[in-house]
């Protein structure tokens, strides 16, 4: 990448915060700039960082929940309700966890209640 994803994310959030009325125009130009710089491959990472920054700026947390088995829409909705509306909750399925749930907060703190962890702890 020509510029690091962090720099794009910071530039975007700062400009949107400074000129909220020009939001649509800024988004359009931002995407054009990323494409022009040849950094389109990193757009996913840039988007994740923008989401993270926006969530943190609004006082929320990034929650990533990994379940061992697929959940119904209702169960996912019920799970998301447990958190503050400011939080950004992402749910994913990881069969290697065998059973249970693993919750990661802001990429730093983790609550691991999976069977895979218990088995590993028993083995090693």
């Amino acid at each position, binding site marked *: 990448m020509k510029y690091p994803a962090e720099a794009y994310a910071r530039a975007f959030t700062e400009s949107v915060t400074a000129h909220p009325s020009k939001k649509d125009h800024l988004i359009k130009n931002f995407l054009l700039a990323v494409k022009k710089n040849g950094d389109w491959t990193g757009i996913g990472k840039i988007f994740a960082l923008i989401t993270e920054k926006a969530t943190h700026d609004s006082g929320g947390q990034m929650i990533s929940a990994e379940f061992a088995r697929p959940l119904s829409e209702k169960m996912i909705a019920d799970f998301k309700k447990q958190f503050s509306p400011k939080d950004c909750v992402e749910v994913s399925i990881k069969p290697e966890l065998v059973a249970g749930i693993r919750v990661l907060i802001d990429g*730093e703190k*983790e609550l691991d209640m999976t069977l895979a962890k218990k088995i590993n702890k028993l083995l090693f």
Partner: protein
Amino acid sequence: MKEIIEKLKRDIVGFEDKAEFAEIGIVTEVGDGIAKISGLRNALSQEILSVETASGVLPAVAFNLEENSIGAIILGEAHGVSVGNRVKKSGKILSLKTGDELLGRVIDPLGEPQDGKGVIFSAKGGFLPTGQAGASGGKDYPLERKAPSVLDRESVSAPVHTGIKSIDAMIPIGRGQRELIIGDRQTGKTAIALDTILNQKQDALGSGRKQVICIYVAVGQKNSKIAKIVRMLEENEAIKYTVVVSAPASSPASLQFLAPFAGCAIGEYFMDSGRDALIVYDDLSKHADSYRQLSLLLRRPPGREAYPGDIFYLHARLLERAAKLSKTNGGGSLTALPIIETKLGDVSAYIPTNVISITDGQIYLESNLFYQGVRPAINAGLSVSRVGSAAQTKAMKKVSGKLRLELAQFRELQAFVQFASDLDENTRNQIKRGELLTEVLKQSDGEPAAVAMEVASIFAAINGFLDDIPKKDIKTFDKEFLEFISKMHQTDIIEPLSKGEWNEKTEENLRSAIQSFKNMKKIS
């Protein structure tokens, strides 16, 4: 089978697992043994991290602490690490389990045995966080440690005899000194270090000097070469007092980088317990290369010859840990023999000049001398020992002063050797004496001489006893003479010389022994 099932049941029943938040990091990038980790903002520099991969837990070391991430070097094969792997802190900095159990063993820089002789310590040890509980039989020593301060040290006072006549006489090494062995490839650098290790066995016998524990650190060497060295140590029974730290060329750069520090930690264990240790870093050129590789992969800015800016500090902090401790600190010592390989004799390259300036002297080996048959190929003019002469024994001092002078005069006249017939008699004699001394100082590798033998041999040469012997016969004469005095003059010559004692009586005994041997040779 029933017992196993019962045990398993008991384990499961007694298993407790509290659900609690843990501080973790996530691997965001990985490649070439380097991992970039997000999170873990409280990690310490040089802290051990555990990377949880699909195939088990892999250790890593926090190397770069950046604003939003950590650059870590993965210890071992990094194939199992993938993006998204969880990383946990251990709260411990990199350390190695040390103890007397390491003697006679070949280990990797993480303390894992490489010689197939089984586990080293009774309980699960090493630096892994899992190995902490209940570990016994060994002491954890950090790989990175502050060198002893000025107040903790004292001057070098006892010698480390290498068993090589030219070194022990002209470039003496003291216990606690750092003496660089430098030279091109295939000039006998490792051979000098190995002879020194072999010589420690005979040097401790009957001399009153303490046995020197040896540590040989192989960095980036061929596996076959390391195997050959280990075999040689075993055959000569030198492995009993030696530890080999092996990070061969096939091992990851991270392990090659850590190997000298691991060896140093082992050396410090022996030094702290009041013993004398000798460590050979073979070689620091390859160590610098491995550090350059890691630094460039971690995107640290490159400097001269693409080495990172702190390459001098890397070697300085390693070699500063060699010391002679004061009596109040146990009186132990750690002598370092770093090896540097030069390219086409260029000692002014970056790493050689760095290490020359850090060490207390250097033994300079020359390809030309090596091919002329002067082995060890030591260039006595460019080699120097800055502190070792203070540690020389009285006997060696007595003979070495004149030897150094005679060889220096010979070097000045060496250019005129081919015109010898046109020179005056005095110059011719000086050249002849120089050639004779060069001949006496020649030694095969793997045959270190006891210090008493070295003194006797040099004494005979500098006092003109060998002047009437043809150059081609000197080696044989020297060998037979040393056999003669070791058998016939054990108490009156060998014993005092082994202890480093020198007085008129010893000198007289030595003179008469040489004369009687010469007479005996004439008769036969």
